[in-house]
């Protein structure tokens, strides 16, 4: 299966990519790992006339921890992130990256492409919400920082301007008394999740939840979040009743779309289980337990 014909441009620098994209306009797309874009082009969901290949731009795939901050270049692949010192230090990052598709897709797919496709089934955007990440975006009008929570306008649509690219992703290293968990339910490896849930929480003395962020993926047209659910748990000691209520609240905020992966009711039931599991693992990690989290297969 061939994609429709297109002109190919390899960008050697970020500036070149941006000027090519702004010159070529609407008919051009940035190409990172191609694990979404090439599939869409082969299936004729998209027929760009120009591809601007970002993948050879140097310096855009570094993964580092500087001071109290993690910085991941937009071109870092799922595999590179999963095998990095960042994933070793922050288990929720490993949970997420290691479960994305399969080894082959992880070799090519990038975190920037995962964000740029604005696909609510992609795992990184959901995870990055729980870590309150900030994205650096560079375009012809300069550089700006946006919160990951503000990136997506609607399904498959970001607020990025034409010719504006995500260059790096930054978030704070979670404090010592915190723990997180990301889990997805999938039918098999080379498939997007049926549903996913991420929870990152910090416990103070007496198991008082001093901070929490929760997010659901594949649970609506955008990543689903619920300040109301987080507020139920924030500021008081964790109890089973509180966790149940917060779980119900965020699952009620979900708007799962019935599709070949399941009905709305089925997806809500899956989400319910995933949130509970994620909270359980996050709490145990806060207490210093080492748990290999992973995505669940049928």
């Amino acid at each position, binding site marked *: 299966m*061939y994609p429709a014909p297109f002109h190919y441009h390899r960008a050697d620098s970020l500036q070149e990519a941006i000027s090519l994209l702004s010159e070529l306009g609407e008919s051009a797309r940035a190409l990172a790992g*191609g694990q979404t874009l090439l599939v869409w082009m082969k299936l004729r969901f998209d027929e760009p006339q120009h591809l601007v290949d970002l993948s050879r731009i140097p310096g855009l795939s570094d993964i580092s921890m500087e001071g109290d901050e993690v910085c991941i270049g937009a071109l870092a692949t799922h595999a590179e992130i999963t095998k990095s010192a960042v994933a070793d230090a922050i288990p929720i990052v490993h949970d997420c990256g290691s479960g994305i598709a399969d080894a082959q897709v992880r070799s*090519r797919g990038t975190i920037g492409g995962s964000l740029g496709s604005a696909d609510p089934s992609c795992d990184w955007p959901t995870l990055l919400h729980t870590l309150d990440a900030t994205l650096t975006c560079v375009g012809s009008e300069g550089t700006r920082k946006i919160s990951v929570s503000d990136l997506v306008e609607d399904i498959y649509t970001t607020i990025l301007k034409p010719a504006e690219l995500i260059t790096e992703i930054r978030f704070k290293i979670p404090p010592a008394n915190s723990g997180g968990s990301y889990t997805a339910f999938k039918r098999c490896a*080379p498939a997007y999740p049926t549903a996913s849930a991420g929870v990152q929480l910090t416990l103070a003395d007496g198991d008082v939840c001093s901070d929490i962020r929760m997010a659901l993926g594949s649970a609506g047209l955008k990543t689903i979040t619920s300040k109301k659910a987080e507020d139920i748990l924030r500021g008081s000691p964790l109890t089973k009743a509180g966790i149940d209520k917060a779980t119900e609240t965020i699952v009620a905020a979900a708007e799962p779309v019935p599709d070949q992966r399941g009905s709305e009711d089925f997806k809500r039931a899956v989400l319910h289980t995933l949130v509970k599991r994620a909270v359980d693992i996050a709490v145990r990690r806060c207490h210093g337990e080492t748990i290999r989290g992973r995505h669940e297969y049928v």
Partner: protein
Amino acid sequence: MSMSEVIASKEISGVSVQVTINGQAYQREVEPRLLLVQLIREELGLTGTHIGCDVTYCGACTVLVDGNPVKSCTMLAIQADQCEILTVEGLEQDSELHPLQKAFSENHGLQCGFCTPGMLMSSVALLAENPDPSPDEIRKGISGNLCRCTGYNNIIKSVQAAAKEMAD
């Protein structure tokens, strides 16, 4: 050609791709939309790499690009420019089958053989990273490869046997 001429031209210009496949260098002028699997099979005649689903699911088209497993139906040939590629044809050395090929043959790791080139390449990548994988790690490692007839148990047995052979 200037950028505005490129944009205006309906004619898509070819791109030059240089790759090293199984140690041999190749150079071709290709259409930008040519997929890596088509370069390998149709332009270079290396038909050991198979096309199954053609949509990134089955893994029959798996090859290693600079040591990393990729589904070559979902990569442009031009994206592999200047890369080292290993396909199933490159596994045999001096008429000796690769330990994985031997193990698949001895442990009934294949039946029709359609998925086998991809299974072998994913297994090569897995063992390079983890020379002594548990059965669960093997399942994860080949989870991007579908087999419709052998069943996975013998494939896992084959990878374990090869791992043992390669360690000895």
